[in-house]
């Protein structure tokens, strides 16, 4: 993508931005409805229903909800543990809502962290995520290898005293590519992931494998390449002794020569960014 292409694509970017802000709107709406006793399953269903009512028919992945120490993926060994459980929300508990709706063929993947009532530990984690957001976009602009950036994020987390919890995601990814998805009448899911999106990811993986890149941004050798132009859903996830916090949003990477244009966050009007701006 050249910068000319960026302008040309801005209509497309608008599509992505629209679904991303819709998803964050959903997260805020559902978060406002959470109360003591609500289970993860109920919270996930609230997200699903809220988005379905607004026209979402397909998913990159179905909505997740994690409460309490599950926000830090405490004791997670197998991917099935990501799915919502019957854990009940209690006062002061941290929670994370994570959803990836497909709307009009555009995909978003977002993560929203909050707590039921004050939780100073999670507030601290959220505040410290700001440095990660800056670090990631800066190093992508420098065209550092994705694996190196991953390690730098890791080092920053360790310096802050946190554990890297995105390591628990499949392939330990801090980000993955998202793309447009064909709208179909039937939208089956497989282990919580939309089959259309999985298809896109798989085809990217196959093409990428041939050309030496991967749609998964991981700590492994297959991510030892410069950032690939496209849309990346980036999700640094901090954990600190039973409390977790993350954000997830789309980073646009282009092949523009202008550093500012070569990588930028799709939207800066998001809850966590506003939070930092307000200095909380």
């Amino acid at each position: 993508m050249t910068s000319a292409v960026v302008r040309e694509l801005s209509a497309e970017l608008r599509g992505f931005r629209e679904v991303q802000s819709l998803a964050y709107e959903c997260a805020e709406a559902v978060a406002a409805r959470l109360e003591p006793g609500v289970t993860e399953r109920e919270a996930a269903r609230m997200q699903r229903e809220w988005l379905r009512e607004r026209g979402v028919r397909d998913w990159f992945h179905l909505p997740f909800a994690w409460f309490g120490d599950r926000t830090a993926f405490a004791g997670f060994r197998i991917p099935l543990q990501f799915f919502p459980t019957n854990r009940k929300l209690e006062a002061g508990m941290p929670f994370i809502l994570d959803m990836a709706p497909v709307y009009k063929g555009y995909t978003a993947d977002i993560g929203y962290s909050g707590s039921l009532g004050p939780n100073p530990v999670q507030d601290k984690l959220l505040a410290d995520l700001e440095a990660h957001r800056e670090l990631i976009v800066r190093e992508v602009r420098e065209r550092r290898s994705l694996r190196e950036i991953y390690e730098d994020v890791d080092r920053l987390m360790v310096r802050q005293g946190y554990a890297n919890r995105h390591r628990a995601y499949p392939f330990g990814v801090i980000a993955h590519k998202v793309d447009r998805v064909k709208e179909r009448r039937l939208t089956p899911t497989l282990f919580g992931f939309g089959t259309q999106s999985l298809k896109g990811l798989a085809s990217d993986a196959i093409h990428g494998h041939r050309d030496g890149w991967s749609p998964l941004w991981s700590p492994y050798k297959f991510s030892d390449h410069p950032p690939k132009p496209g849309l990346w859903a980036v999700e640094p996830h901090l954990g600190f002794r039973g409390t977790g916090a993350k954000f997830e949003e789309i980073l646009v990477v282009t092949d523009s020569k202008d550093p500012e244009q070569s990588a930028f966050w799709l939207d800066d009007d998001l809850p966590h960014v506003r939070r930092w701006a307000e200095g909380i």
Partner: protein
Amino acid sequence: MAGLKGLAGARERWVSTGGIELCVAELGDPSRPTVLLVHGYPDSKEVWSEVAERLADQFHVVLYDVRGHGRSTAPTPLRGGFTLEKLTDDFLAVADAVSPDRPVHLVGHDWGSVQSWEFATVKRTEGRIASFTSMSGPSLDHFGHWIKKRMARPTPRRVGQLLGQGAKSWYVYMLHTPVLPELAWRGPLGKRWPKILERVEKVPAGDYPTPSLPSDAAHGAWLYRDNVRSRLSRPRADAYAHVPVQLVLPLGDIFLSEHLYDELELWAPQLVRRTLPAKHWVPRTRPDQLAAWITEFVLANEEREAGLPVQRTAATGKHADRFGGQLVLVTGAGSGIGRATAFAFAEAGARVVAVDRDAESAARTAEMAQLIGAPQAWAETVDVSDEQAMEKLAEKVAAEYGVVDVLVNNAGIGLSGSFFDTSAEDWKKVLDVNLWGVIHGCRLFGKQMAERGQGGHIVNTASAAAFQPSKALPAYSTSKAAVLMLSECLRAELAGQGIGVSAICPGLVNTNITATARFAGVDAEEEKRRQKKSTRLYGLRNYPPEKVADAILTAVVRNQAVVPVTPEARGAHLMSRFTPRALRAIARMEPPL
């Protein structure tokens, strides 16, 4: 005034109740909350002198000699004069005299605690007690139910608990024999008692016990004779505490089993548990710790009473009963195992001093420690290999924060490379930090602990390399083996003073020791590459430092000598004992770097 030496400056008054004159001593500002200390058997109020002195700055401290003890008069006849009902009368009389308008905070030790349980569970004292701290003295009613429950359904475990406590109660049976106990106390036992306390209970010598001991002990035998049989056979069914209770449980008590309190939550719903590695006479042997816990508990209850938001919520982490309020110093606390250890202690409610040569990361550790439960946390920037800096640190810590209860000598650096590639400079550096850092820590802070004479614990981070030889780590392994042996020797030396020493041997743990390790005999670029490679390998192993921190807390609680942590460290430890030749073969292998 012979008995009052230990309570210098106390105001004295007499309270009469039912024909008895009770000797009451008061310290501190009467407008402050009243803390009432009740002594046990065979004691007089002077048993509290050390604790009272420490509480007097903040509270109105009141002590009294129980009837028949110290300078209070004894009932006539003695038989029937020591029932819990009469002791409750005494308590109410004293409370009304010293604090007529406000409820008092009760603290009882031994029989003082047995009595106080009665005060805290009977109707007529409601509104007169604000809180109760119990140590080494169960409620006879709870005890009665405890026995009944175990007799009614004697599972093997319950029988074991019954027999255990039955054996520990030998002196109770003795005290029920007529005349003989009195003769013994007024004769040879009374004379030898101070020496026995010193030798068996490690009670420091001094002006305790007081000269009134023989008559205290002779009169006090009636405490047992008047109450034990009747209460144990017919325990009250309604002995529920109507006040918040703090239970201080000395784990080394030779008279009382810790299982006596297993179901205490049923009787005292608002229970805060504290455990202490000490013997029976904690008011003499652990006054600092008791004063701290009493202060914290009293203030928390005062705040609650006043309707203020309670700021001192008890920490909820693992081992909070043991480490709550203790002062813990961790070196190398800016990263890795040190930081995780500081956090684990913080979660247990300890006050944390985070020491690191990197100021920023130490500050970060202290800041985060406060977020997760440390009532206070401080960062100190010190290089542990710098003797003068360590001396300064020790002075500062003692002056500003107090004597360290748990010291974790954790700071260490990595050094890899063959023996001939390792320069004298390299050797010096690794020994300076890994060995001398530990020596300085033990010497300075261990000395403070020993001088205080109230116990403590030292944890030294050794390594699995201390018993696993390797041709790639000659200097590092040497330094860590020295730390291991130093810990063992120090453990032997300090055992008699109630100070434990543990050596932790973690193994391969995912910390930044690999990223900062020095690789001798290679150029800078190759060193960088090896740092990166080893970091990745340790990352693949991914054993979290948090688990090592948990092992450290457990080692302190159980007073373990040598603790290998990761499975490979445990394996190597076993092999070093049973198949050392296999270990030597492993030592010859080239590490995959």
